[in-house]
């Protein structure tokens, strides 16, 4: 039915997995040299990209680092949403809720009980690394609590049911002041790992002053890498097949032995945990959690990410997240140099508006012109250059 599905299913076939799909074997032998060359090229590229990513904090200023950090956190959240919406076909508009659970969960678990803004804040004062892990687990639990709905509904019904989570979440964030700090949110305890604090105190490395952004860069990079690899493993393995089957034909999936409701609920939990992890990172980057952030617009942005990037794949989520979160920053930063875009207050189209136009259009266009999303472009190029085996 949908072309956007195809990437989920065979986008990543030329993979370095231990046993190439047997179906590919005849093709694979025919083009074995080709494949090996491509793999070689791929790993060189990956290594180069990795080095660049590692070196960036030494060159970028705080603004760009922060933009990059937001993009990485978004990528983690988007991977989670893509597992759910892209691979399992369960539409969720409530992703922002689980981001909030992660972010606030971390604050409450790591923070010290304190008074701020006239109310007492609950804080367990746990070691921050433990708090981060528990916050992710907490997001998973929140997802699990929603499983009576998540396991039974699908399509638009689930989409709108999850919208309820946004409203519930906002209500709680504003009203449960003792945990959330209310409208002004609460301060975020900096992460501390092995006695090393990821806060704004300056540490000078190679003559470059490292503040929170520089330090968090590596934490985020590591989290993103782990999250992406894990999701890729899930998608390519037994759970991934079951998830795609649920999306395409849930009765058949049940008959094949996939426990339908339980699987739907599990994917929901997994996706919530990704959101929770993204939420923890966002909290660390923001240094303060504010309720306004976790609204519907955020959920829609995540949906936009996976559609623009490509449904059902990890690469799609990452590319889409980078696109959606970096675009407004680029436009703002270079608004002077761009035609049509003008600085706010001067009467033209403001950078914020331009970026909204662009990503609205990108969502529409991605589905139409790039069935595999932005991440699918490489594949299209690849298939154009290598002749496909025609079916006889």
């Amino acid at each position, binding site marked *: 039915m949908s072309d956007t599905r195809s990437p989920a299913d065979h986008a990543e076939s030329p993979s370095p997995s231990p046993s190439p799909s047997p179906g590919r074997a005849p093709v694979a032998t025919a083009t074995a040299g080709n494949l090996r060359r491509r793999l070689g090229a791929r790993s060189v590229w990956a290594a180069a990209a990795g080095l660049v990513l590692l070196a960036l904090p030494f060159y970028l200023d705080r603004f760009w680092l922060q933009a990059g950090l937001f993009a990485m956190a978004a990528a983690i959240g988007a991977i989670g949403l893509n597992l759910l919406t892209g691979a399992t076909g369960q539409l969720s508009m409530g992703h922002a809720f689980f981001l909030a659970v992660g972010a606030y969960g971390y604050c409450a678990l790591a923070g010290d009980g304190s008074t701020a803004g006239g109310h007492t804040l609950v804080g367990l004062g746990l070691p921050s690394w433990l708090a981060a892990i528990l916050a992710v687990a907490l997001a998973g639990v929140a997802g699990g609590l929603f499983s009576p709905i998540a396991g039974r509904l699908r399509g638009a019904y689930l989409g709108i049911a999850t919208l309820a989570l946004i409203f519930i979440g906002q209500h709680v964030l504003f009203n449960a002041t003792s945990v959330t700090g209310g409208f002004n949110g609460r301060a975020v305890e900096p992460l501390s790992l092995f006695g090393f604090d990821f806060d704004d105190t300056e540490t000078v490395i190679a003559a470059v002053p490292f503040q929170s952004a520089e330090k968090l860069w590596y934490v985020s990079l590591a989290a993103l890498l782990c999250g992406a690899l894990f999701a890729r493993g899930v998608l390519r393995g037994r759970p991934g097949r079951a998830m795609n089957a649920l999306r395409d034909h849930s009765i058949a999936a049940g008959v094949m032995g996939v426990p339908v409701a339980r699987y739907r609920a599990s994917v929901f939990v997994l996706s919530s945990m990704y959101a929770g992890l993204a939420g923890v990172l966002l909290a660390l980057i923001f240094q303060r959690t504010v309720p306004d952030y976790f609204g519907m617009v955020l959920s829609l942005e995540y949906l936009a990410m996976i559609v623009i990037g490509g449904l059902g794949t990890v690469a799609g989520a990452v590319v889409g997240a980078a696109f959606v979160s970096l675009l407004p920053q680029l436009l703002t930063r270079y608004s002077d140099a761009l035609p049509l875009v003008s600085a706010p207050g001067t009467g033209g189209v403001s950078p914020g508006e331009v970026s909204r136009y662009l990503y609205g259009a990108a969502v529409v266009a991605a589905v139409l012109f790039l069935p595999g999303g932005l991440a699918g472009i490489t594949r299209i190029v690849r298939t154009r250059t290598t002749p*496909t085996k*025609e*079916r*006889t």
Partner: protein
Amino acid sequence: MASLQVHALSVGYGPVRALRSVSLEVPAGAVVVVLGGNGAGKSTLLRAVSRTLAFHRGAVTGGTISFDGRPLDGLGPDRVVAAGVVQVPEGRQVFTRMTVADNLRAGALGRRTAARADAARSLARVHELFPVLAQRARQRAGLLSGGEQQMLALGRALMSRPRLLLLDEPTLGLAPKMAATIAETITEINASGTSVLLVEQNAALALRLSSHAYVLEVGEVTLDGPAAELAASDEVRRRYLGITDEAGPAPASAGAGRELRRWTA
């Protein structure tokens, strides 16, 4: 005067070439059958006539189709229906969430004149052909059994009083008795003036019904002639009628020589 004329038709689905220069003719009032294995391009042929290839990302790449001398190329599917060419698609495709009665109403949508009396007459005729459709009028079509759905699909197509009926494997999955009933109905429909282009796997039945037959293989017409002649040809007897002249071990070509062991792990 040929009713439907297909000339040198080629169709492709993207890179897949599904039909190559196929020519075929359905004279007015005739029943013509197209035989062919899986993937031969039979459904593709009907889609090209009904102009629904676009739904499958396919396109006509060459050749012409005309009905009563009027070219059908470039028309929308609705105009083809209005011209009197109606297809019963492969796999029944009843509107599962609508009632049987509404399915029949949907069948009448394509008619240009919406005279009520006309519609009532068509409905009466369909109910006469398939009494079960009258009994189940209020039931959701999706809950009918396969055979019932096939009857509904056929009845639905008849609602618009077609001049040429395109049938894509109408007896697929039908009980022998039901297949016979459908065959009878096709003869009956034909007798009342509708030409029929029939695509069938059940070659024995199809050849009995038709006056002329074509054999389509991998997108090309490999044989054609009067139905009786084809029925007698060795090739057709072997491939489509499943009759082997020398009674010997069944030619279970595949599966034989291979064996499936039990799974141990």
